[in-house]
């Protein structure tokens, strides 16, 4: 038989251009294959440090995002009422002049009246620099409604956090615990890591109310009750302490466990740590039995330290820890009811942790020298590693829960040791090495410093002279003192209420605040379009930049159309959130692998242009001419500190090309492009572990420009800044919080990790609303973006509410049924489905699948717009009133993190198929028309 013989070696493409993905937040390297100058195929870059060639479903569907019919085509000026989606296309000159005509008077009179919030921005070191030059204190990105609890707890406890700033030692770990992660954050590195663990037969324990994705392949699943992770973790701590299975040597050397706490309730330093006259932390030196600075040469800190100073007894933090967590309150038997995890199982997991940490310890023959000058012959590892993200973070007890998790890691001696959790440059970096936040606006002038930072006590809070909050989102106030990422989720409601003050222009980038990114979607839309008695909008002006026709676009007065990710410059900078690995600093770029075929511009270049038109310092020369042609020019020539710019690779040194520190290099981007779009600088082997205390690492960090001086520090098991807020709440120090917040601050800002029930439990009756309701991000979608993607929407085009089997049966549900879901704030009617691998008291759905009709160039009959729904309608940024006349914020009281996952609901079966999910939102007009009927994408012959 003669066989056909299809071409086995067709030409793959004319050219491969290597850039960085933006289909989610992972920032994988991609190879973009071009044919005839058009994008033909996208695959992972094998040489890239983040993904080593693999790519997820989103990344491999990038071509459909790049060609989405929802792409905006030109600047838009609103013609219909807000929310209608009616616009006219205008020129860029007209758009930019309009923006300047609004912004310039604001800057000259009251810069705070511009609120600039940037959503899923990957250029925060640049956008914050712009906002600082403008002079408004009102800037942040989306961290406040994402995972600021995780980030802030990590940095306040150990000077670094999961994901971008650290990761498990995948090659060496022997037991892996995963808390509150569905299929994202981060996506490919976590999947690759799990794959490697499976290859080596390493056990993974998944702690999550829902068993999908990573938890589905975990060797053991702990289907915990939402919001109780902290209790489970502290019960593990109890078991380990009780059995003495903690790393005493590690605790003594590298943490503040030996620091000395003032125990005298009459002292005005009650509960603070003992310091010398030079403000150095003191410990008892076991060599002398006397107090000594913690970092003194050869000092051997004593965990059992106790000293009387000026008549006041001080006792070591470690003794406080023992006293608290050995208490029966934290025994597994005391927490099994609330957590839903049987006591015997908690004890067994504690035993596994101890067994791996101490009986399977790792030793690497790598000498190194610590900051006290002591030489160590080996690196000892406790090969237990942990990763966690939004599941434990997005609760009102999330900060303390995240701290509890780091506390557990540190007690085991498994942070920055082989087989444990490893930092990625520029981390480790202690909270004290970070800037403090600034918010004092001066008309016509830049802000005095960065907007976001780390506070260390009440004196660092941001209030105006009249005692009202300085920021529109009330970040860094007594309500949420350590709001290191701001509170983007509070901006619209505060701006609408004029509380703490009125703003003029709301300027948003890449954040779908009129839909899936707001707590209470219906109210967000109302507030954005609400008018005053004169018929004027309560929020006078809204400027929005997005690449696509999202729900938020419809609420803008002026739309600045952004490019797709393949048409733009970006830098994934060490000044911001780079792509480093534990063994290397790394940064990356995006560059236009194709030019846009529409009248659109990269948002960052638009900001450069606006800055020049506004004459913002740093963006213009002395004669007022623009300093930078565009964002690419800024990436090359901007210097944050002398020799340190947005990109660390291929700078100009005294004797030739250098990396890290060096003068700007006009050809820098060419070098990045030639190298596949990224740069890596390797950590020396001697600095690979123990980084916070390892002088080889510290010296390398200075040399590379990550820091200007070595900054070794101790891990803060005891978080003293929290205690300073408590002291004020107790009335001992000035300034003091408002009375209504005193008790809450005393309870929740505990300097040692605690657990308290999620706040909503105390406001929405748990009997009336017995179920926890959660969302998860689907593996093949990134927030609302995926719905416009012809391929991805066929994977995640619907989102039933999943109910546990017992509930399904108790309510008599059958396939195709719908349910009414009610919370204290509202109700929705949605399709339901049964799921067995689910916590008994939890219901959940995929997030951001539901779309407003008319958005994203979808047909009005698209299932996303008819059956798709958002849980956001059931959530409010304030908790229900509970008899004290107050509406408490639905946020973490430490950081202000949006407490999405505190949501409690009840469900009832509805008798008939309503056909559409409730509530139904009026359609918006589409400024880009609708997508074509058929897609048959092929560039080549």
């Amino acid at each position: 038989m003669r066989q056909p013989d299809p071409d086995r070696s067709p030409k793959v493409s004319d050219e491969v251009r290597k850039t960085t993905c933006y289909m989610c937040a992972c920032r994988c390297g991609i190879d973009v294959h071009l044919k005839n100058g058009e994008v033909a195929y996208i695959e992972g870059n094998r040489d890239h440090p983040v993904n080593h060639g693999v790519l997820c479903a989103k990344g491999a569907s990038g071509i459909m995002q790049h060609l989405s019919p929802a792409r905006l085509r030109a600047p838009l000026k609103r013609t219909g009422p807000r929310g209608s989606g009616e616009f006219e296309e205008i020129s860029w000159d007209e758009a930019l002049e309009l923006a300047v005509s609004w912004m310039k008077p604001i800057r000259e009179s009251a810069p705070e009246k511009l609120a600039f919030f940037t959503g899923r921005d990957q250029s925060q070191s640049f956008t914050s620099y712009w906002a600082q030059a403008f002079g408004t204190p009102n800037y942040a990105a989306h961290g406040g409604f994402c995972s600021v609890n995780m980030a802030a707890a990590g940095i306040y406890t150990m000077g670094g956090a999961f994901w971008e700033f650290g990761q498990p030692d995948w090659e060496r770990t022997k037991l892996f615990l995963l808390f509150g992660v569905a299929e994202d954050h981060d996506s490919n590195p976590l999947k690759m890591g799990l794959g490697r663990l499976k290859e080596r037969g390493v056990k993974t324990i998944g702690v999550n109310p829902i068993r999908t994705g990573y938890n589905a392949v975990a060797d053991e699943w702990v289907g915990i009750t939402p919001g109780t992770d902290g209790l489970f973790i502290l019960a593990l701590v109890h078991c380990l302490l009780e059995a003495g299975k903690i790393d005493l040597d590690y605790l003594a050397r590298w943490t503040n466990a030996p620091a000395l706490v003032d125990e005298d309730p009459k002292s005005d330093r009650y509960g603070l740590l003992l310091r010398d006259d030079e403000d150095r932390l003191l410990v008892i030196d076991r060599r002398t039995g006397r107090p000594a600075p913690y970092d003194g040469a050869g000092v051997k800190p004593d965990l059992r330290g106790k000293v009387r100073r000026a008549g006041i007894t001080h006792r070591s933090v470690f003794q406080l820890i023992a006293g608290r967590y050995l208490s029966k309150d934290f025994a597994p038997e005391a927490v099994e009811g609330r957590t839903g995890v049987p006591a015997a199982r908690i004890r067994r997991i504690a035993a596994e942790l101890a067994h791996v940490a101490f009986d399977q310890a790792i030793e690497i023959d790598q000498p190194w020298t610590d900051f006290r000058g002591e030489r160590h012959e080996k690196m000892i590892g406790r090969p237990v590693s942990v990763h966690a993200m939004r599941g434990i973070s997005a609760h009102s007890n999330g900060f303390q829960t995240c701290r509890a998790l780091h506390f557990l890691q540190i007690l085991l001696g498994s942070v920055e040791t082989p087989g444990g959790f490893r930092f990625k440059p520029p981390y480790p970096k202690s909270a004290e090495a970070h800037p403090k936040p600034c918010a004092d606006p001066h008309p016509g002038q830049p802000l005095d410093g960065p907007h976001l930072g780390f506070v260390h006590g009440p004196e660092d809070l941001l209030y105006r002279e009249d005692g009202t909050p300085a920021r529109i989102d009330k970040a860094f106030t007594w309500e949420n003192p350590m709001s290191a990422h701001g509170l983007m989720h509070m901006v619209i409601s505060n701006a609408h209420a004029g509380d703490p003050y009125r703003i003029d222009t709301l300027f948003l980038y890449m954040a779908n605040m009129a839909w899936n990114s707001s707590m209470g979607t219906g109210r967000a839309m109302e507030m954005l379009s609400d008018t005053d008695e004169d018929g004027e909008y309560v929020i006078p002006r809204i400027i929005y930049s997005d690449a696509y026709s999202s729900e938020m676009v419809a609420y803008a007065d002026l739309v600045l159309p952004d490019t797709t990710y393949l048409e733009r410059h970006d830098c994934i900078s060490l000044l911001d959130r780079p792509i480093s690995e534990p063994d290397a600093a790394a940064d990356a770029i995006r560059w236009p692998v194709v030019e846009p075929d529409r009248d659109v511009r990269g948002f960052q270049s638009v900001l450069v242009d606006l800055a020049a038109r506004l004459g913002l310092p740093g963006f213009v020369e002395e004669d007022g001419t623009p300093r930078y042609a565009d964002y690419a020019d800024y990436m090359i020539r901007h210097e944050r500190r002398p020799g340190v710019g947005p990109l660390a690779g291929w700078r100009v040194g005294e004797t030739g090309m250098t990396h890290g520190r060096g003068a700007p290099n006009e050809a820098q981007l060419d070098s990045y492009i030639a190298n596949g779009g990224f740069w890596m600088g390797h950590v020396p082997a001697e600095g690979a572990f123990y980084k916070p205390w390892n002088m080889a690492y510290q010296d390398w960090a200075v040399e590379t420009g990550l820091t200007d001086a070595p900054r070794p520090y101790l891990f803060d098991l005891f978080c003293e800044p929290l205690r300073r807020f408590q002291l004020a709440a107790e009335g001992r120090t000035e300034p003091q919080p408002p009375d209504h917040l005193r008790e809450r601050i005393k309870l929740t800002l505990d300097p040692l990790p605690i657990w308290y029930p999620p706040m909503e439990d105390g406001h929405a009756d748990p009997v009336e609303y017995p179920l926890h309701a959660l969302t998860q991000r689907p593996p093949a979608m990134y927030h609302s973006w995926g719905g416009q993607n012809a391929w991805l929407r066929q994977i995640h085009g619907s989102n039933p509410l999943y109910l546990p089997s017992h509930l399904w049966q108790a309510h008599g549900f059958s396939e195709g049924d719908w349910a009414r879901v009610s919370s204290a704030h509202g109700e929705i009617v949605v399709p339901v489905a049964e799921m067995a691998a689910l916590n008994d008291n939890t219901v959940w759905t995929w997030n951001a699948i539901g779309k407003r009709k008319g958005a994203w160039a979808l047909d009005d009959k698209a299932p996303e717009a008819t059956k798709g729904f958002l849980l956001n309608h059931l959530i409010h940024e304030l908790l229900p009133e509970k008899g004290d006349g107050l509406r408490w914020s639905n946020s973490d009281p430490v950081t202000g993190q949006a407490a999405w996952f505190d949501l409690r609901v009840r469900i009832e079966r509805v008798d008939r198929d309503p056909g559409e999910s409730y509530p139904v939102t009026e359609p918006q007009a589409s400024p880009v028309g609708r997508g074509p009927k058929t897609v048959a994408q092929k560039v080549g012959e």
Partner: protein
Amino acid sequence: MTDLPETTERKLGLVIDLDICVGCHACVTACKGWNTENYGAPLADDDAYGEEPVGAFLNRVHSFEVTPESGPAQLVHFPRSCLHCDDAPCVTVCPTGASWKRAEDGIVLVNEDECIGCGLCAWACPYGAREMDPSAQVMKKCTLCVDRIDNENLDPIDREPACVRTCPTGARHFGDLGDPESAVSQLVEERGGMDLMPEQGTKPVNKYLPPRPKDEEIDVLAPLLAPVADEPRGFLGWLDKALERMG
């Protein structure tokens, strides 16, 4: 109607590890991307932005819940594509000879120029692995990336199916299952790789590695922890001794 080769020199196929597949669909869209741009007509999507989008995919991932006798329910992710069967009923049923199984490596392919879009092969396939392209109206199926695996324009390391290259967890393996010494055959041997629906008699080449035991099924080796003392004061006594030992 169309003959199968009596034997094939090699049996190229996939080994899919159900123990590690997280159901992320990376393989689904990498496949769609490569194969829409390459072999035959593009993999079209009809009603792409509408009420009932229907696209041709050569590989899909399904999820099944499994409730063991003891222990909590489990979720198994199950990627499904052509299994390149030795006794491929989709080939023998083809009225035009468009479907064929390549003699040298066993890959089952469709010659789109000969395909009349009758759909008999899709009916004959017990695995639902063939899909009619909604636009070109020709039958589409997994080609094992026949235009990648021997492609001299690709680096040797990239000469594997797009789904295998992209899989982030490493759950997909490609090789010659006719060679007992090959890495994929060894993997099947070690892990008890299985045929899908063997009762259908199609002798699939692709193999699935079953999920490993989970939850209560695992033997736990760690000894339970014994308290160092009965009460907090005792703990401090232990601490003193432990610190003394540290020197």
